[in-house]
């Protein structure tokens, strides 16, 4: 999947299996990715587990779990709100809201100023989190692995990154390079993405990449929703334009030559 990190990087990963996205004193998020269509190197997210670790006076631990075709509007214990013991109450500041049944859920953890969005688009899940910096940074900095194991902080490990240029992420409007996957050429993929996203959108190149990789149009819609979540949840200054990304560090999206 494409992971947009807390520091603002954008990486395409081939990570398969369960990987932690966030792991701090307050929240733990684990994403499970599976290969997209047999034989492809790309993977997409099929399961998400989010653990709110609880806080004195507010709520005890709550776990939210979603997987393909099962996007519940409640935590795994059936509650929709946080609370202590089996009792739920709104003042706990933890609430699951179903935006679109079976397709879009938002979890507000007001007591830690955090909002999480989970969507199912096509067969796969998308995830977004907005959290105060001090919450995101509330992990044990003394443990060298503490940050390394969080995809949201470090992005993909080098061995798990996909070279999006080699993957044919766009032709820069130069007429295509002949690579296809499914029914898309570079030109038709860009056209399909332009129907949903501005070419300057940070998620435009990920959209093109995904269409070329899979031929599955639902990934274009997923990119559009990811962009929408970022607009709604991300701090304005952290929105990185695709132009800036092209000049970014390793793993940043770049157009083909």
């Amino acid at each position: 999947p494409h992971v947009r990190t807390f520091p603002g990087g954008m990486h395409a990963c081939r990570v398969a299996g369960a990987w932690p996205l966030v792991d701090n004193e307050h929240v733990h998020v684990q994403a499970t990715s599976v290969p997209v269509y047999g034989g492809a190197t790309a993977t997409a997210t099929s399961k998400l587990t989010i653990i709110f670790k609880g806080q004195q006076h507010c709520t005890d631990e709550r776990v939210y779990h979603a997987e393909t075709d099962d996007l519940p509007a409640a935590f795994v214990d059936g509650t929709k709100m946080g609370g202590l013991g089996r009792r739920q109450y709104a003042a706990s500041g933890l609430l699951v809201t179903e935006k679109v049944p079976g397709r879009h859920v938002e979890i507000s953890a007001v007591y830690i100023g955090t909002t999480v969005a989970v969507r199912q688009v096509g067969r796969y899940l998308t995830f977004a989190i907005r959290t105060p910096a001090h919450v995101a940074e509330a992990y044990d900095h003394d443990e060298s692995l503490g940050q390394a194991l969080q995809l949201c902080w470090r992005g993909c490990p080098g061995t798990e990154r996909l070279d999006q240029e080699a993957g044919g992420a766009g032709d820069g409007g130069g007429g295509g390079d002949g690579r296809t996957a499914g029914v898309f050429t570079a030109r038709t993929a860009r056209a399909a993405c332009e129907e949903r996203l501005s070419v300057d959108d940070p998620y435009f190149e990920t959209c093109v990449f995904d269409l070329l990789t899979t031929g599955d149009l639902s990934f274009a819609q997923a990119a559009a929703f990811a962009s929408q979540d970022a607009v709604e949840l991300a701090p304005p200054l952290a929105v990185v334009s695709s132009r800036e990304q092209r000049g970014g560090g390793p793993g940043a999206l770049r157009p083909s030559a």
Partner: protein
Amino acid sequence: CRILKCNSEFVAATSGPGRSSVEDGGGVAAVGPAGPVGPIGRGRPSPGSAAPLCAALRAYSACTRRTSRACRGDLAYHSAVLGIEDLMAQNACGGTSAVAAGGGGGRLASSEPSPPPPPAPPARAGPVRRACGATRARAPPAGAYRYCGLSGD
């Protein structure tokens, strides 16, 4: 839930004789659902002048902790917890478990300039350590948020 008992004890502790520093602030009311009531939240007193109030707030806080289980669904209780923390911060009390800030009430009679306020609590002890809903009123500025997303293939 005996939060009203805690409120009464706090009011009694801060309105009796010898509490001039509090009375100078115009009196005290317990923390109600609408938040701190009364003028004690105005301004930032010197640590010494607030020492009796801080002691009363610590006692108030201890009382709420004792009632936390029974009061967990009580709005007045949660408001009181938030209000106490607000008042302790406004009066530079230094936290509910700390030794009295500013060196005690002896400074009330001193003509020396007030010492500088004690250092602020560490940032990590901010909203995440506060009671439920505290961050609603204390959300960090937009630039203090982080965003992460996972999508596509």
